[in-house]
């Protein structure tokens, strides 16, 4: 095995491009610092107050536990669906990423509607002998819901990594007498550690920035304090947000220090990946995947479909007509598809240079850019939206040009979700062995040709997973879609929000079902096409 510890000096062009990208991604952070100064905020003073420390502690407790459980569940699901003969593998690969697409404000509400006392699953609970379902709330409720919403951040990169991981080593290990578990620990785990770490970091950052789920579970974290203070005491809201960002930056830097040991495989694409027979473990494994699928996708879907069908039935029974027409749903769906696909493609392209710089060379510019891109994920979306408005209003001609444009919306999404693409793309870059380059260079291939014929094909599963992550996340994004989108550019999420706010649950349910169906189609598309190349 060769280590890809970078040694060469990076080409100036690559450093230049990364610097420009890093500057683009630092807009929200700079805005936040400026707002802390302009409002006379006192983030350090807040740190010593019990009113900050208590929610900060709860935020950390939640983020650490959710990270752990999402890492375990995401990794286990990836291994089971990529490496074993578990039934319905294809289907699971399409379904398992889907919890990403539920906007938390309606997803968490749907969970509650299905699972909590008196909810839709009450009859089911009674029939299996549970008289009263436990009430999902507080720390447990927040942990439960967020674990189910965030495991795809781990599942997707790990599954992509496993797909490109040659089975030869595992086979040798098995021939030498290792059990499946031993070979997983000794061979597979070191190879996927980078992907697991990158995904877990995203789970951590998402959890500290989440507001929708924690507020519905009534678990009081830092984001609730931020939300309550926006109008009442803006200085406090900005100071607390800065604390979030600093916390995120610290965790990102920590992960980088640990994550430098990524190991490239000795051979890539040389053999087909192994497929373990689960044997007598099959029912248990299938049960586990089914349980996660049923809770993560099934439970919220039950409530959404219930709301949607009630509305459709009502309209057909000549009850109150629906407040939305099919034209409006189609319009919103089209905008959602357009903006999320563009954002996903641009996000992956935007982080690629930084990933090359960090993965191939030793570069301070690279490390800093990487940290900026990822830490931004911990900021509430509304701050990114306000930051962009702040900067476009202060950048003269360019600002006028961008004001109220789709380009600005896409840019905002990319800044918000570039972090999701960053980790996987970096892992993908690091897993292309240097040897291939050396050989190709010796044979006279130029840099572009090497990129096209060696890097991109080897990185393809990782890049597609990155596209998928950004795509599903953008489809559900709310604050930026409300604040930055051009006037008259509704998305499914903005219309779901509007309907749900005023308790038009049928309309919200219908559009949420459309959103999930659309993302399932896209997810299936990516999985299916990927499978063909095996």
């Amino acid at each position, binding site marked *: 095995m060769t280590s890809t510890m970078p040694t060469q000096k990076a080409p100036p062009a690559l450093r230049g491009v990364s610097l420009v990208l890093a500057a683009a991604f630092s807009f929200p952070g700079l805005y936040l610092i400026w707002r802390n100064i302009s409002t006379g905020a006192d983030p350090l003073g807040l740190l010593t107050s019990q009113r900050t420390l208590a929610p900060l502690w709860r935020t950390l407790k939640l983020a650490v536990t959710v990270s752990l459980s999402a890492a375990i569940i995401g990794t286990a699901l990836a291994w089971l669906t990529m490496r074993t003969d578990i039934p319905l593998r294809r289907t699971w690969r399409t379904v398992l990423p889907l919890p990403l697409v539920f906007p938390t404000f309606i997803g968490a509400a749907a969970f509650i509607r299905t699972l909590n006392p008196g909810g839709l699953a009450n009859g089911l609970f009674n029939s299996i002998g549970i008289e009263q379902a436990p009430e999902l709330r507080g720390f447990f409720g927040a942990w439960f819901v967020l674990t189910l919403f965030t495991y795809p951040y781990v599942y997707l990169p790990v599954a992509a990594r496993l797909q490109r991981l040659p089975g030869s080593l595992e086979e040798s290990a098995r021939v030498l007498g290792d059990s499946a578990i031993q070979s997983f620990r000794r061979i597979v785990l070191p190879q996927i550690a980078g992907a697991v770490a990158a995904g877990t970091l995203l789970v951590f950052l998402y959890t500290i920035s989440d507001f929708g789920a924690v507020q519905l579970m009534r678990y009081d974290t830092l984001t609730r304090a931020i939300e309550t203070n926006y109008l009442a005491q803006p200085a406090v809201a900005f100071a607390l947000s800065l604390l979030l960002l600093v916390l995120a930056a610290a965790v990102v830097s920590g992960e980088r220090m640990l994550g430098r040991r990524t190991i490239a495989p000795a051979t890539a694409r040389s053999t087909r990946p192994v497929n373990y027979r689960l044997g007598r473990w099959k029912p248990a494994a299938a049960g586990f995947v089914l349980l996660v699928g049923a809770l993560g996708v099934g439970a919220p879907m039950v409530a959404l479909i219930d709301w949607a069908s009630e509305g459709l039935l009502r309209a057909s029974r000549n009850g109150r007509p629906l407040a939305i027409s099919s034209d409006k749903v189609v319009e919103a769906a089209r905008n959602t598809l357009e903006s999320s696909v563009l954002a996903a493609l641009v996000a992956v392209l935007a982080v690629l240079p930084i990933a090359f710089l960090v993965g191939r060379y030793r570069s301070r510019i690279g490390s800093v850019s990487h940290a900026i891109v990822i830490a931004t994920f911990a900021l509430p979306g509304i701050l990114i939206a306000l930051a962009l408005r702040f900067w476009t209003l202060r950048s003269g001609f360019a600002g006028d040009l961008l004001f109220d444009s789709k380009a600005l919306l896409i840019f905002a999404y990319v800044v918000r979700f570039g972090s999701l693409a960053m980790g996987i793309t970096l892992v993908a870059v690091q897993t292309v062995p240097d040897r291939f380059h050396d050989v190709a260079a010796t044979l006279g291939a130029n840099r572009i040709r090497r990129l096209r014929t060696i890097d991109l094909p080897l990185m393809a599963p990782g890049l597609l997973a990155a596209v998928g992550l950004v795509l599903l996340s953008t489809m559900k994004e709310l604050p930026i879609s409300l604040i930055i989108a051009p006037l008259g550019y509704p998305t499914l999420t903005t219309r779901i*929000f509007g309907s*749900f706010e005023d308790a038009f649950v049928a309309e919200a349910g219908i559009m949420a079902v459309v959103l999930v169906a659309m993302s399932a189609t896209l997810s299936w598309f990516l999985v299916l096409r990927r499978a063909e190349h095996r």
Partner: protein
Amino acid sequence: MRCMRPLVSVLALVLFASACGGNTTERVLEGTAADIFSGTCATGEGQEVTIYSGRTENLIEPVLDAFSCETGIDVAVRWGDSTQLALLLDEEGDRTPADIFLSRSPGPVGFLEARGLLGTIDDAVLGLVAEENSSATGSWVGFSGRKRVAVYNLDAVTEQELPESIFDLTSEPWRGRVALPATNGSFVDWFTVFRDQFGTDVATQWLDEMVANDAKYYPNNRSIVEAAGRGEVDLGLVNHYYNYQEVAAAGDAHRALNHDFGDGDIGSLLVITAATITRASENTNEANQLLGYLLSEPVQRYFTEETFEYPLAAGVPAAEALPALTALEIGSVDFDALGGGFEETTRIIEASGIANQ
């Protein structure tokens, strides 16, 4: 490169989808908007007005469609959350494209007024509502109202038990049974008026006693009404509006009803939704015209018949299904007099520890 083919296909799908959109302009309105204005649409002269609306699209768009059709003035809207839109207006300052801001509740309006971002509404428009439902400085005008009520689960609360006043809820029989949307805008506004009417000490003591009586915290009105329907909570303090929506959607299957507190109790305050014109607006004529339209007879009728809200102008009576109005209205409280009222309210609510309940 084969592996990039899915991306290319998806992109093609997007471009195709984008290409087959397109709007047609109609000369006559359909659906709900036609109930407000049924005539032939006027031809515009290029006038336009831009709205940031914290009120939601399903309820407000028919009104705007009717206005646009009747007057020929184009209306562009950014729909959103009132608090976030207020922050956006603050960020945009004099360069905002918005002429009008519609708020779900008075809090964000108070914030904008304190920042000097609101212009003055024409007296002719202000005069359409009772004095207490518009600002003394002319910066806002109320255009509909939502009443504070108690929502309760039919199976968990008997009619004899129902409280006369919010002050009853601090007593032992209600221990652990009451839900408060303590950080929600409507509750914060209500609590601010509560302080104004009874004094900060009384209001703070009430909230502390509610916390001591194990009141439960919920993030908003909607989640309380939903929880009351399932029986997760017995009773909650909310806006009257949400239970009407739930019943309209689910009928008898929804097991919760609204309860009105006694006459004059602070628990049955009317909280108005306010319309404002931004200081930066260059289309003040059109903006005033639109505000006047919101207060016209057909629109006020629409608000009460279709959206279960209280009308505030044109002599329109409240829909029969709505509980009778008692004297208290939030409009009677002067935003200017409250000063840092909302900030202080937020501080008291935080200090009570309700958010951890």
